[in-house]
Structures are given as structure tokens and as C-alpha cells.
């Protein structure tokens, strides 16, 4: 068994929904497509399809849970729509940076939708951008970020933290500042 090739094929299978579907329909053809040695084709094709589907869905579920923790207020605001939007956005293997990368993708999507007037609630793009900015400062190193917002985030965040799920609110411009002066100093954050 050429373990490296088999592991590569397994890693692709577990993280690619299209490949899982093809495998369930025709395991042997899928195994051959992945360029495995003849003996490993047999091993790969003999994988139990139900457990492969189970594992693939477990991996997706894990990514969802990680991003929920990474953008907790956005998740609170969107409820079940959060998972639906995220799953569509993170198809394929996890990217480097994992949950941070997945969260950044979702934040970009929500911001883009808000810019097109297609987001509901209309302030969700601001909130996602706000939370995603903190991710930049979870890494070492100094830096500064200034973000402008269209909606009163301070009020919206307060409402979400107290368990409310705010609806539409009138726009009111605001700004956020994130500043780390040295690589070992604390993060300074202000929101207007």
C-alpha cells in the first residue's frame, strides 16, 4: 500500500462533497480517477459509503461550529440562516487559517450582500465586518485598522448581548478603531 497516495485520496474524498457523491454512486470508478495503485484502488473502493458520508458531514458540522464561535454575534443575529449561508460559502477543503478563513469568507459575503442592498437585516454586513476585524488582531504583531460602518453597531451589539434579536434600524454612520502599538502590547479598541 502506498500510504501517501492513499492518504491524499482519502483527504480529498473527506473534504469534497462532489467526490463523496461520485464515490457513493460508483466507488470503483472514483478510486480509479484518483490515480491510485491497483491494490489501493481495491482498498479505496471498499470503504463503507455510509461512514464516508457520515465523516464528511461531521467535518462540515465542525467547521460550522467553529465559525459560530468565531463570529458569535453574527450567528446570534442570523440564527439558522448563518449555517445555510456558511455552508454554501465554504465548499471544499478547509483553507489555511481554518475557522478564521471560513469566518472571513462569510463576513465578506455578508458585506457584499449588504453593499448590494440584499442583506437581511441590512446591518448584518457591518456586524460581520466588525467581528471579522478582531480576527486580524488574534495573530501576533502590531497594526492598526479603521473601519467605517453604516449602522449604529454599539446599540445593536448591546441588544444582541442582552439576548434580543434586533430587526431593521435606521442607518447612522460610525467608526471602529483597532490598534496594537507593539507586538506584545494589548489591543486598543474603540467603537463610535
Amino acid at each position: 500500500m502506498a500510504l501517501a497516495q492513499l492518504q491524499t485520496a482519502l483527504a480529498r474524498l473527506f473534504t469534497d462533497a462532489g467526490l463523496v457523491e461520485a464515490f457513493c454512486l460508483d466507488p470503483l470508478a472514483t478510486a480509479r480517477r484518483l490515480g491510485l495503485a491497483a491494490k489501493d484502488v481495491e482498498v479505496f473502493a471498499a470503504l463503507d459509503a455510509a461512514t464516508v458520508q457520515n465523516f464528511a458531514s461531521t467535518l462540515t458540522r465542525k467547521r460550522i461550529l467553529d465559525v459560530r464561535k468565531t463570529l458569535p454575534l453574527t450567528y446570534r443575529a442570523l440564527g439558522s440562516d448563518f449555517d445555510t449561508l456558511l455552508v454554501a460559502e465554504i465548499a471544499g477543503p478547509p483553507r489555511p487559517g481554518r475557522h478564521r478563513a471560513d469566518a472571513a469568507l462569510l463576513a465578506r459575503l455578508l458585506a457584499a450582500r449588504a453593499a448590494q442592498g440584499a442583506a437581511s437585516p441590512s446591518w448584518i454586513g457591518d456586524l460581520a465586518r466588525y467581528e471579522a476585524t478582531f480576527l486580524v488582531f488574534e495573530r501576533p504583531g502590531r497594526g492598526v485598522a479603521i473601519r467605517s460602518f453604516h449602522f449604529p453597531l454599539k446599540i445593536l451589539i448591546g441588544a444582541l448581548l442582552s439576548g434580543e434579536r434586533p430587526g431593521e434600524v435606521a442607518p447612522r454612520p460610525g467608526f471602529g478603531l483597532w490598534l496594537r502599538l507593539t507586538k506584545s502590547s494589548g489591543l486598543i479598541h474603540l467603537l463610535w
Partner: protein
Amino acid sequence: MSRPASLGSGLGYRPQFRAELFLHRSEVDFLEIIADHYFDASPEKLAELDMLAAHFSLVPHGLDLSLGSAEGVEERYVEKFAALIERSGAPYWSEHVCFTKAGGVSIGHLAALPYTQEALDVIARNVETVRKTIKTPLILENVTAVVVVPGFEMSEAEFVASACALTNCGWLCDVANLYANSVNHGPSLDESFEHWPWERLVQIHYAGGRWKNNFLIDSHDSATDEPVWALLERVAKRAGARNAILERDENLPAFPELLAEVARARGMLEGA
């Protein structure tokens, strides 16, 4: 293999319960930290690590070293792990008998290895590589095998026992994984029990799981199930276990519920 220190009954650290943890400091004997959460970390995260290390014995637990990857382990990842172990003053550290990446694809979770001699040779080679950088004792954990790779040459118990013996590592026995694999794939625990490397046991993991499509998932999102408690007690008696960690990642309950589980495990360790 010399057995590392006796630490008692502890908890897998999660930032959500940090404040309550310090309020109940005397009820938690030690903490396990997810190593990956402290790599490339912000000053705030490193300050958290230092604060935890000042009050608890810490054991770093890795998720993504991928000791079973045939293409080898990542040098940079090992260096980060080494720095964390040094900073935390850990008596030992742990990783899984699995692979998490291959061919440039990161799976994002623990995938079971084929139970073959080739996979054992890979683990031995990778552990040897890691030891050039990290001298602190490593213990190896058995995983939940959601997908079992066909063509195995030995049982899971024999595979994990051989991995520990070949590398001269201690064993981190996850009793929830042991239980899940037995009900999902067999053989029964009674059948396999004596084939596990009890003489190498250093630490136990326990957690609650969830049934989905007639399959028990190691989800860490509920209280530990009674069959897992029974197994923990059996393991403690069989191997004289001295260290146990409760793993709870999702649906975190009120902190006293976690403390009650930690206390119950302590009773089992002490009664062994």
C-alpha cells in the same frame, strides 16, 4: 518508558468558563489546553496561557501534528509546539494516532489510519523526527474511527499498542473513543480489552457523544454517558490510572455540572 507525574482529575480548558474555573480553582487538579489555540497567538492569548500556567499544571494537547502522515510532520508546527511546551512547563504532551492532512489537503479533523505495518512505520519515523526538537514525553491517543480503512493487518488495539511500543510513548486512553469504536464497528470491548497497552497508560479522556444515523459520534457536546463511565471505572481499575481529563466542547452546561463530572472521575481514579 517511565510514567510521567500523577496529576489527578482535570478539565479540558475552554475560555468560556475561565472566570468560573478560577472561582473553583481547588476542584480542578490540572488542565489540558488545546495546543493549536496558542500557536501564532495574540499577546492576550499568551497572557491567558501564562495565567493558567501560574495556577494549574498544564498538558498541551495537539490536534494537527498529523503523526500518521506518510509525507512527514511539518517542521514549523513542531517548533511552535516545542515553544508552547517550554512556556507552559508541561510534564508531558499528547497527540493522536491519526492523520489530519495529506497531499496539501487539510482535513480539519482526525482521520483514522489503516491498521497496517506501513502506517506504524510512518508513526515511528514521525515521532523520531518530533523528538529531535521536543524532549518532553509524548503520549499517544486512540481516536474515533468514523471511516475504517479496509485491508487492515491487525486490530485497532494491536495497532495502538504497537504504535506506543515502537515509539516508547505512553498511552492516552480516550474511553469515549474506545466505546464509540466498539459499538460502531466492533469488536466488543470484552473481546478487545486485554489487547490494549494498559502498562503504558498515562492519562484518560472521557466525554459525551451523540447518536446520528445509528452511529455514535464523539461530539463532546453532552454529559458523559453511563457506559463510558463504566468503562472509565474498568480502565482505572485495570491500569491504575492517575490522570483523567473531561473533554467538553459544545453545549457547555453550568460549570458545577462539569465539576461534578470531574469529581466523579476523581473518585474512580482514587478508588482504583
